[in-house]
């Protein structure tokens, strides 16, 4: 069976590409870093990959608003190729800045109502660990088999603003017990309906604010020095699931 190839998209200000690539490699995918300029010059490159990742960072400094400039580049220069990539049944994962980019590029949500990521209610960038509850009715293939996760967030513009009733919510902020209405700081940014991640109807296009790539090994847990050791970090399943699904394409 041919090995899975993941495209790690780089742009000026991308900064989580290294550890996200490491996570995919641990999940037995080959990873190639592709700069946005290269992809714009050779859009056909996209078809060589089963998975595309827009990793975290501050693309173009998050100037104007987070992810906006890269989002426009994708929308205006690569729109057709991305639509084809999706139609071909392939996978897209956006993490943190990647979520912001996907939303502003119109990749997610695929249907109305509109959604955006605005400044945190606290008015601050915050780095903290949060509990996440997977929406069991979501079609998301990345979160299959996962009930709860504990992952770090690190963002200033992560508040999901949308109309109630948005479909395909994949992930919600919660407290340790899974209660999704625990308020700040469990919901670190004030997201409507405690939304932390969404997907499309197929479940193959997924974006989230927390960083699964920052918790794939036990020693990344903030309390690993005081809690019983576990084999893997909670985020690793996301990458395993993605690669497993990609093998079926």
């Amino acid at each position, binding site marked *: 069976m041919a090995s899975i190839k993941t495209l790690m998209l780089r742009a*000026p200000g991308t*900064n989580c590409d290294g550890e996200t690539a490491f996570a995919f490699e641990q999940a037995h995918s080959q990873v190639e870093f592709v700069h946005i300029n290269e992809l714009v010059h050779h859009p056909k490159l996209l078809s060589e990959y089963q998975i595309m990742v827009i990793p*975290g960072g501050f693309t173009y*400094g998050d100037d104007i608003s987070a992810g906006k400039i890269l989002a426009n580049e994708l929308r205006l220069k690569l729109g057709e190729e991305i639509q084809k990539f999706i139609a071909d049944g392939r996978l897209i994962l956006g993490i943190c800045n990647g979520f912001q980019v996907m939303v502003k590029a119109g990749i997610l949500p695929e249907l109305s109502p509109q959604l*955006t990521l*605005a400044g945190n209610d606290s008015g*601050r960038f915050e*780095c903290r660990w949060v509990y996440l509850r997977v929406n069991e009715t979501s079609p998301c293939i990345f979160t299959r088999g996962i009930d709860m996760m504990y992952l770090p967030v690190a963002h200033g513009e992560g508040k999901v603003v949308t109309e109630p009733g948005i479909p395909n919510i994949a992930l919600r902020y919660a407290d340790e017990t899974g209660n999704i209405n625990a308020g700040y700081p469990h919901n670190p940014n004030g997201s409507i309906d405690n939304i932390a991640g969404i997907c499309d109807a197929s479940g193959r296009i997924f974006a989230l604010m927390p960083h699964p790539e920052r918790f*794939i090994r036990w020693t990344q847990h903030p309390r690993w020095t*005081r809690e019983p050791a576990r084999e893997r970090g909670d985020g690793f399943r996301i990458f395993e699931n993605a690669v497993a699904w990609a093998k079926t394409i």
Partner: protein
Amino acid sequence: MFWIAVSVKAGLPDPRGEALQKDIHDLGITAVTQARVSDIYLLAGNFTEAEVGRICQELLADPVVHEYSFEEAFLSPDEHAHFIEVAYNPGVMDPVEESVRKGIRDLGIATVESVKTAKRYFLWGELSEQDLKTICDKLLVNPVIQHMVTKQEAASLPPATYDFSLQSIELRSLDDAMLMELSKNRLWLNLSEMKRIQDYFSRLGRNPTDVELETLAQTWSEHCVHKTFKGKIKLDQLTIDNLLKSTIMRVTEELEKPWCLSVFSDNAGVIDFDGRYAICFKVETHNHPSAVEPYGGAATGIGGVIRDPLGTGLGSKPILNTDVFCFAPPDSPYQSLPQGVLHPRRILKGVRAGVADYANRLGIPTLNGAILFDQRYVGNPLVFCGTVGLLPKNMSQRGQQQPGDLVVLVGGSTGRDGIHGVTFASGELTSESEEISSTSVQIGNPIMEKKLIDVLLKARDYGLYRRITDCGGGGLSSAVGEMAAETGVRVYLERVPLKYSGLSYTEIWLSESQERMVVAAPPSTVDQLIHLFASEDVAATVIGEFTDDRRLQLFYNGNLVGDLDMEFLHHGLPQLEREAVWKPLQHEEPDFPQPADLREEILLILGSWNVCSKEWVIRQYDHEVQGGSVLKPLVGINNDGPGDAAIIKPILDSDMGIIVSNGINPKYGDIDPYWMAASAIDEALRQVIAVGGSLRRVALLDNFCWGNPERPDRLGGLVRAAQACYDMAIAYETPFISGKDSLYNEYETEKGSICIPPTLLISAVAVMDHVEQSLSMDCKREGDLIYIVGTTYDELGGSHYYAIHGYVGNSVPRVDPKKGKMQMDALSAATAKRLVRACHDLSEGGLGVAAAEMAFAGELGMVIHLAKVPLGDPTFRKIRDDFVLFSESNTRFLVEVTPKDKHQFETMMAGADCAAIGEVISDKRLEVYGLKGERVLSAPLAELKEAWQKPLRW
């Protein structure tokens, strides 16, 4: 030209406005009922209205949360609110402008000529003119970089022209007084230095050009060559020839550690990590710019220090940042501030934001740091920023160019940034030529630096250049001048890409514009290098070539404008001679009775600015990016306890780690800088031990921030501190690998000079073989035993306990490094055997604070018996419970051991002063029993923690 305003939709919350309202409230102005912030964009160019509409809709405004409006003129404000519009001064570049230009081009609109940004603040409520002025002055406008916009302004500076004429400076005919007149406020050289330069040019039979004189002044500046540290100092009968070599560098020389790969010779010190990789570390200060413009000064401070590891060896990847800040107390009353200084709260907030915005954007985790407060930092805040880099070991040595190699300038464009005293004509801005003081402070462009790092490391791995250095203070003059010291160089200044036109050849050569590096590339690879940089939108420009004639030759459009002999430039500086005196300082010896109950005392210490939780700051830095964080700055059951040192795993599939810690305590310097320095080294090392490390491979960095060294008493203290660095580091066998000093930190006021407390920051970096051995400081389990390791002396001089009683005292904590090393080695061996469940080092606030922090971080109570604490001096002056509880003696730890490991732990610690003094209990209280066995302190953890968290919960 169009004016565009983008605002949060009415009815939606505006977090920026809410934050502003809170800041205004903190100023004491409570009448503001609401505040909102709009982004203003001025676009100049040939657009249609429809195109502007598209730019707003598709680029500038978010369809869900924003509304926008635009007009072809200054937008009229909302009548119901006060409004203040603030823009950057001409010449200050907002990086957003470049992004907006790119965004518009991406929309297919190519007619953009210039973009300028501004912010508009709307305030509702009954506000007087005076209130508005206060809000502007204290919060919104810093005249160094900003101004209020009241009328239509141009979106860009009109193009300025520069007409070349070679400036030569009359030097040969000057007498001593005239030489000093020339030097004053421009060259900052002393008479013997000026005469040395005069002699040089007399022998050549000509006067220097302006650029030659400026290059010499810069190369010979305190900032570049550390004249004080390398000079001759007379202290009593002693003459010290080169303080740096005879103390700090001597440690490294004598210890001869084979793992020290490159020390004191490159932009950062380099040590071996695992045989395949090396790590480098550098800490710098950016004090003066941060005092003047906290956000920009601090941002460019961190930006500058990141380029040090990037310019070390053949280039390293930045993997960790550490920041240590010193400010005046944030609750200082406005009327107590000297004229012309910003309020410390504003400085703190600005510095925090500047460093965070830069470091977070670059994706470098900020894992370690400290914030200290003292009234005397009011005019001179200290901003220490440090970066650790990772590089292949076979690239760890500084490269060497060949004659014929090309000088390639990479990164951002060059402007008038950082050129002091230079004024520039603003062309057509007004009808007359108006002089605007140049922008000695920039606001930084982190994404430019990120792009530069990404592509440089690629070029390094492809082997496209032979040598690299950073372009920071001193600009090209310093970078190229130093790089070519052994070869020679020709530079063609007109080739340097400029931010705007009108710069003279001297300005180009001296500019300190950020985000630039210089590489030496052989002709065979230079095309590939330029192509690679272009592929990631980073400029790479050949600006000259290295020669073999050991001359620095500068050209501008074919004219030779500078021609200096490298030997004279780099070795012509006469050695400085200075006098120093040292008299021990005498403070009043405290005289107050022991309070019956120490609860109030510990609450006061926990709530003091230096000790209190810094969570508000820490959370605004990304400490998880790159995925390598093993021990984070906040630890414990609720992720909010104060960790001792940071640990990262720089290579994700290796088990080896790096520990980074810092030691600093200016309070002790008020008694004796020798023991201050000794304590700082001890503190940095015990933090390494406290998190599970060992002294086996620890390297140190020194950063001295001092007052004016021309004052003999200040210099005497500096000598003593440097001597302690030698004595301690040699005994602990921890070499120094790099360092830096910042002198002249004094602020002149009408009432005299405010000198900062002498401040030495010691940063330590240690290699850890197995990160699984990491320890955190939070209590783990009820029933565990609590040991104290180390000896407690009557050492409360400079302590927090004395401070809350209004005393400094004289009994400053000392260090016995021989005993200290033995104890640290023993404890380190015990932690390696996994016999220790938690460990916290004792520093500010002593045993009491350490116990409280361990307890509330683990949400478990603790009982402590002071009678069991090993005391160093049997005649402990008036043995008192409060002194034992709050003594700040060095080399001490609190250690949690599980009862089943008691015997083995005690066996391993035999020979060290170590005693079981208490235990972990389920009742969530801290209980302390005194020397006579009666209870002297009992406080619920919630109360202790609240006192500790409250001050900086902003």
